[in-house]
């Protein structure tokens, strides 16, 4: 089954480029332009990974990240944060909030795609271990 | 280059020229008792230089772009 990637960014052009890259890499994609839309898509689309921009109108990327990590149902979702504000404290904050990777804009498309591939591969391994190991606390 | 800034720099340059012309050793070159146009040569030198400085100032600040 194809992995599902949810792309969240409020810049339409960046969104177009990310959609192109993700579908070229063979993933199923959906897009959201605001925090509210993103939360709705999380429910509806059940993605394996989110490409999440930090600066969003309304609910921002940090908060979405937090909510995803708080909800047990979404705990397996990988989060790759994207931001144009590349300050150290923000990277630290994103990672502390449970993001799996942090990429600053402007990004290299190859690096981005390979990061996403790596994260999804890890998720699949973990998933395999999880199904074998049975119940987890 | 910023016009205001340039104006200030030009004025400073004229100041520097003036300071040079009104000091040793340039002054000593004109320190002679002879007359030029019926006037003491030092006196002529000082006033002509003075007038020239003023003309330069006026040219710099009153020039329309």
């Amino acid at each position, binding site marked *: 089954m194809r992995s599902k990637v949810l792309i969240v960014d409020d810049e339409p052009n960046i969104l177009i480029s990310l959609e192109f890259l993700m579908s070229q890499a063979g993933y199923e994609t959906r897009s959201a332009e605001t925090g509210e839309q993103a939360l709705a898509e999380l429910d509806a689309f059940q993605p394996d990974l989110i490409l999440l921009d930090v600066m969003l109108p309304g609910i921002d990327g940090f908060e979405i990240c937090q909510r995803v990590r708080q909800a047990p149902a979404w705990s397996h979702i990988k989060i790759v944060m994207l931001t144009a504000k*590349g300050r150290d404290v923000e990277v630290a904050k994103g990672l502390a909030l449970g993001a799996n990777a942090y990429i*600053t804009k402007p*990004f290299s498309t190859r690096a981005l795609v390979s990061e996403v591939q790596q994260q999804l591969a890890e998720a699949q391994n973990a998933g395999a271990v999880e199904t074998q190991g049975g119940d987890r606390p | 280059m910023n016009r205001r800034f340039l104006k200030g720099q030009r004025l400073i340059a004229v100041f520097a020229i003036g300071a040079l012309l009104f000091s040793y050793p340039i002054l000593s070159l004109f320190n002679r008792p002879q007359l030029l146009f019926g006037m003491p040569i030092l006196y002529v030198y000082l006033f002509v230089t003075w007038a020239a400085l003023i003309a330069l100032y006026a040219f710099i600040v009153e020039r329309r772009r």
Partner: protein
Amino acid sequence: MLQGGVVFLIILLYMGMLFALAHYGDKRAEQGRSIIRNPMVYALSMGVYCTAWTFYGSVGRAATSGVGFLPIYLGPTLMAGLWWFVLRKFIRISKMYRITSIADLAASRYGKSQLLGGFVALIAIAGIVPYISLQLDAVATTFNLIWNFPNIGQQTSIGQIFTVEDTAFYVAIVLAVFAILFGARHLDLTEHHEGLVAAIAFESVIKLLAFLAVGVFVTFVMYDGFGDLFSQAAAVPSLQRLFTFTPGEGPGGDVYGDWAWLTFLSMMAILFLPRQFQVAVVENTQERHLNRAIWLFPLYLLAINIFVLPIAIGGLLHFPDGAVNADAFVLTLPMAAGQEPLTILAFIGGFSAAISMVIMATVALSAMASNDLVLPLLIHFRLVRLNRGGDLSGLLLTIRRIAIVVIVLLSYFYFRLTGENNSLVSIGLISFAAVAQFAPTVLGGLYWRGGTRLGAFAGLTAGVATWGYTLLLPSMASNMWLPGTLVTQGPFGVEWLKPHALFGFIGYDPVPHAMFWSMTFNVGAYVMVSLFSKQTILERNQARLFVDVFTQPLGGEGQSLWRSNASTPALMDLLHRILGEKRTNEAMKTFALRQGVPWPMGDEAPPVVIEHAEMLLAGAIGAASAHVAVASVVQEATLSLDELMRMFDETTQVIAYSRDLEERSQQLERQSRRLEAAYTELQAANERLKELDALKDEFVSTVTHELRTPLTSIRAFSEILHDNPDLDTERRQKFLAIIMRESERLTRLINQVLDLAKMESGEMEWRRTPVDLADLIRDSAQSMGRLSAERQIELTLDLPARAPLILVDRDRIQQVVLNLLSNAAKFCDPDHGEVIVSLRVQPEWITVAVSDNGPGVPEEAQTIIFEKFRQLGNASRRRPQGTGLGLPISREIISHFGGQLTVQNNADAGATFMFTLPLDGAA
């Protein structure tokens, strides 16, 4: 023929004329039709530099040392080239912070120190009183000469005339009255004395004409032109000597060194003489008048000096036996030729030179004396309570008037005491040297942030002590009280302490000698002590404001160190008592409206208002006293060092904490399910991070973000196109179009950021041309036509056929109009868009309004939208287009041209953006 009575009558007539002129100048100022708002009058008023010393003394000095009189005028000529940097800074600072004297400037720069202000005032008064006395001396002596017309030789000593007949005394009294009437009639917020300046400028014309008349008469009537005069002189060895540099009275005889020091001395004098500061800085009405003065004032000096040497030589040829004092040649030559009208004219010229100096110097010194000496003392000894009691403005005026009378009388008694032993020039130079001591403190303070109050005290003390010992003391020793051996043999016979040859240095004349040592000690002490002492917070703040004055916004409020509020009634009461109720209310109301503070104010006055109140008071009672006065009604003191240190510590902790956080986050990642526990901690960290954000420069971070966003698209699509050479044409075209659009956006953004940075640092180039705003709006509307037609917006223009021309930068104003139009188009009703542009011409303003029928701007957002990168979304579009810099730039542009850009909501629907531009820049 020329009896004393006639001369007296002429003096009276002349004084009457001055009174009338000054009165007329004040009247016109009250009606708002100033006669001194004119670069010519400004430059002429600077002619107050030329006193009786110039008028009579230059000839005297030329008669003994040839061109030796010239450095006093070449110095200011050279300095004029630096005015654009230095004097303009003085003017800008004084206007922004209502500085009214040098003492005030020094006090304000060094942490609003009353002590420093008082010290500077004291030095100025001690240094200038002998100089004023010199002018009284000149008036009395020349009156005496002319009284004996046409007999030249018989001078009676003034000391022998009874006081009743003593002209100097009467002149002193009349001048004091004049100074009080036109220099201290009311406490002014701007401290402008228009009538006074008009009179001074007029006197500059009179003395120049008089001197030129005498010069022309001596050169061309008594002799046969320059050639004749100089060739006659060349035949006499003692006169030919004057054609070249001749060694002065000093033993060393380094004429060029003397010359250089005198030039430097007069460069400092033109900046720091209190009367020059008064006319050039305090009375300056517009900064750009400086342009004209930069060349006109040196030209004035040149004109008044052309005939100095000819008159001196003419006098020496005419009175070969030395019976007539060369200081009086200007008067005695016409007298000797029996020229009555010319004699009178010369006398009036010298008289006007003397009295203009006396009046201006007295007014300037009295402001210092009252604001920086008397008032602080009264406050200190609790004789005046600023925070309670009745009206103080009367008291302040009385102090100032008494100060005028005291200074004039002091000068008079100094004159009676010293007699006429001193030549005109030497006393003047001693005064010059006194005020030159301000140079390190003031110039250092304006260009070097590190100068401290202690440094200023040390420099001034060292400089003034050296000045007193090497110049003042010897001048007294040659007069009276002190033994003459002090100068000739040194105190107690100690050779190396001789005042004119300190440490055995004998290369220079006394004045250059004193300048060398006093400047050495002054600068040395100022710099060294500054480097080893600390500044208070207030001092550091003032240093920053003063040194970087050109990068502060004009009308620079908002730099307040006041942290707390004050009770409005107490603050207003303070202002009422000092400035009067009517003017206080007018000034505060204007300010409140401009700042968006509600009027009348609530019970608590916010920090910006307190700051402004302090500035208003500074104009009337000096910066230092104003600070003390305002502090008395503000409950909490200024931001303390402790508080600042605490804020600093906190910041450091937050930074350390965020590093800590980074490490911990890796553990967190491993135990991602146990985030709950760290969650509360994180929230606290969030709060701190927000604070950190605010402390860092938010602007830089935002610019970075805004630049990276288009860059991201450009890079991503470039790489996609590069990695996928076989992409279909349609998508290829689409991606290329995005790259182009985003590149444009990036360019636009960079340009705007640069524009804004240039404007804020004052480095923008503005090209002023006469512009018809109505025309400009029609143009702009046309270029917007396509866009509005596309969106079906109805654009209505409500314009007069033509508007008065104003001098602005056409392109920049068009940028503003286009920005407002495109904003209106963006935000108006999406279905039935209506935009109305109107232009109204008012007596002083042109108002342009652009209104739309969109949702309007929420009350709370009305100031935010003028901040950088703050945009409002609208319902149909989540993220507005544009860079978020349009309105801030527009506001910068409009305020550069003296106008205001504001927004308000319409009664029915939509918002109106309105800007005004003043008509006084009319072409």
